[in-house]
């Protein structure tokens, strides 16, 4: 990948990699906050969560030990307060029983009070025990393990975070980066002050992670996004064979539409994990600038990338959307205006050449072809925003939130086909070619 550091600066070559797969087990205290902390750590580090055990876990000692043995973790992250010390010590005993003979042995990363750490370290024998003072230190340590000790490698997660930061700095607003690859899905929110909330979910993607999307979302949830009827069995076969298919962009329109369907659910489920970990989903949905990268950014048409984003993320405000394919430059593709209203509302679009008004009815979804700086104001829901629309123009999305699709195929398929057609994502008659 080529990274440009500015218009005049020389271009530097960087080795970008997904990093090696890292299996982590999470042992946490009884408090909900503790569970969220370890979940955030795992999401931020791009590690695969293979086991979660709470201090008050109902499983017996033997069952907990067996679960940890079966998980074969590379790293065990423990977090808890002083009052969790006894319970965490018990879990470490279960870890000793379960993984004491594992080779290589799992390492224990602890984010606990300094007063508790020495006692837990004793109980973690014979595992390598490392105590960290802050969460970012653990995240960095976990990423270091994913790099396999090669400091020259830049992890894709770090690059996505840099991109989100750069967009936030350039725009002077919060920015969200959405990245979907063969086996990972990332959501990174960068705030104006430089703070970043990142979630990198593995395995959840469009190739190696496609079957996990179906397992998590259910087959019907993937199928509902396809604008033609398809047998569940046939769809499942396509999904299961994706990990063994040739990597690269989909060759025909049905393959593109299946990839779009999987990407929507991958993003939606990444958001659920983000919410579960206590990260700010509302801020992600209302980010004024959104960057799409990875496989979704490499879809043949920019309308396809935009449609995946609005269906999967369900933005809640006025957002300017960019997309940056892996082998290409970032481009502004459109502006999304999300309108949640039960009655008709008026939208006022102001640009340098003048002002125009339009009526927005609930359920409407379509593009307004404007390629300039615009101010948006909608009466009723009180949506306001400013941005620059891209090649597609302004997408007015009044389908409501949360987005619900009709249950019956007879109603759902025409609606989904309409949405695809509105963004030029398929042929105008809604059929797949």
């Amino acid at each position, binding site marked *: 990948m080529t990274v440009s550091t500015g218009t005049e600066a020389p271009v530097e070559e960087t080795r970008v990699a997904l990093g090696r797969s890292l299996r982590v087990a999470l042992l946490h205290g009884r408090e909900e906050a503790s569970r969220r902390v370890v979940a955030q750590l795992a999401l931020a580090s791009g590690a695969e969560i293979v086991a979660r055990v709470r201090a008050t876990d109902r499983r017996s*000692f033997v069952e907990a030990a067996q679960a940890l043995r079966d998980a074969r973790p590379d790293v065990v992250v423990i977090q808890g307060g002083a009052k969790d010390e006894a319970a965490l010590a018990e879990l470490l005993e279960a870890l000793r029983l379960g993984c004491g003979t594992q080779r290589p042995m799992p390492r224990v990363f602890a984010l606990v009070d300094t007063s508790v750490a020495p006692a837990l370290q004793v109980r973690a024998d014979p595992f390598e025990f490392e105590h960290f003072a802050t969460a970012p230190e653990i995240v960095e340590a976990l990423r270091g393990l994913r790099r396999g000790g090669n400091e020259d490698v830049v992890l894709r997660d770090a690059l996505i975070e840099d991109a989100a930061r750069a967009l936030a700095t350039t725009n002077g607003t919060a920015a969200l980066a959405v990245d979907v690859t063969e086996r990972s899905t990332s959501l990174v929110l960068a705030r104006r002050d430089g703070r970043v909330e990142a979630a990198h979910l593995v395995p959840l993607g469009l190739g190696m992670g496609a079957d996990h999307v179906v397992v998590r979302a259910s087959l019907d949830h993937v199928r509902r996004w396809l604008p033609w009827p398809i047998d569940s*069995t046939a769809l499942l076969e396509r999904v299961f064979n994706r990990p063994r298919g040739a990597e690269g962009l989909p060759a025909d329109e049905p393959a593109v539409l299946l990839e779009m369907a999987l990407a929507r659910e991958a993003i939606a489920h990444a958001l659920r994990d983000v919410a579960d970990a206590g990260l700010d989903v509302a801020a992600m949905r209302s980010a004024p600038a959104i960057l799409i990268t990875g496989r979704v950014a490499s879809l043949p048409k920019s309308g396809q990338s935009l449609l995946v984003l609005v269906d999967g993320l369900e933005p809640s405000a006025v957002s300017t959307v960019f997309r940056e394919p892996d082998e290409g430059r970032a481009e502004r593709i459109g502006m999304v205006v999300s309108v949640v209203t039960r009655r008709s509302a008026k939208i006022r679009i102001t640009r340098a050449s003048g002002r125009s008004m339009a009526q927005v009815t609930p359920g409407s979804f379509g593009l307004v072809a404007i390629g300039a700086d615009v101010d948006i104001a909608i009466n009723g829901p009180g949506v306001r925003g400013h941005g620059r629309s891209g090649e597609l123009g302004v997408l007015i999305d009044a389908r409501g939130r949360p987005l619900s699709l009709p249950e019956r195929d007879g109603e759902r398929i025409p609606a989904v086909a309409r949405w695809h057609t509105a963004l030029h994502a398929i042929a105008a008659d809604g059929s797949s070619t």
Partner: protein
Amino acid sequence: MTWRRERWSADHSLPIGVTQRAQVGELVRAGDIIAAGATLAGAMRVSGARRLGLSPSDLDRELRVRVGSDVAAGTVLARVGRRFARSVTAPIAGRLLHVTVDGDLYIAPIVDRWTVRATLDGVVSRSDDAMVEIEGEAWCLQGAAAYGPNAFGELTLGVDGPTADLAPTRIDVRLRGRIIVGGARVSAEVITRAHACGVAGLVAGGVPPAGLRVVYGDAVTASGSPSRDDRPTVLCLMGFGSAALPPAVYEPFAALAGARAAIHTASARLFVFSTADVGRHPTPSPDVAVRGEGPAAYAPAGRADTETDESDSDEPAQTEEELTPSASDPSSTER
């Protein structure tokens, strides 16, 4: 995906509660028990070093029972002193499972027993409470994904050609303990019927994922689902759905039929224990062989290593007709 004969290693993870296991250097054959142990229920923690007034590091010296041993209720686990003796006894019958850093003892009641069998002919190269690893030479076919527990048995062709699907009617109890090659596809019906008939495992080019979900649950993925419980064993060679086997894959099946085989589900590999040179020997056309003598006819004549048990009264049918049970077939009522 090709057949390769070379030295392989297969690891066998062990559940908690191992009682005995094969030692490093021991020779084993596929199907041999290499580890046995107890299934344990909720463990009870018993105060050890503190009760005896010892430091945790000294408890080991005073233990009267080795960790991992079965104990009866009231058994003295550790004891110190003579005139004013202090002791720790087992409050329940079970297994002395674990000693904590604090010097406490965990005792768990035994609710069941388990065994783990080898999937390779060879030598134990690693053995500990979590894993037994075996290294040995065998023909091997690397599959795409495998589901269920490891399986062992005689390799048997169940189809007439590489493009054929295995029909449920070709499965009956006479194939008990065999590993059946199912051609291009095995359906959920075949998988469940084969399991009910005691078939050890199924090997096929493709397996419909919808069928896998029916058998193994909705959480099943394309990367396989190795397990230890009593479930069917399926090795999916090429992909999902229906996948005709290439001649380079199918023809050696014909040559190796009748040999002992094992499916190692964690690595999605089929091991076949035969010295037959499937790469050079001309293999009979499957169509011809099936019309002539049925599955067992695939074993090349004069192959010394085909270690089938000739005395086995449950020998599979030698003709295609016998492989297809009828409603009046008394053996089919055994299901």
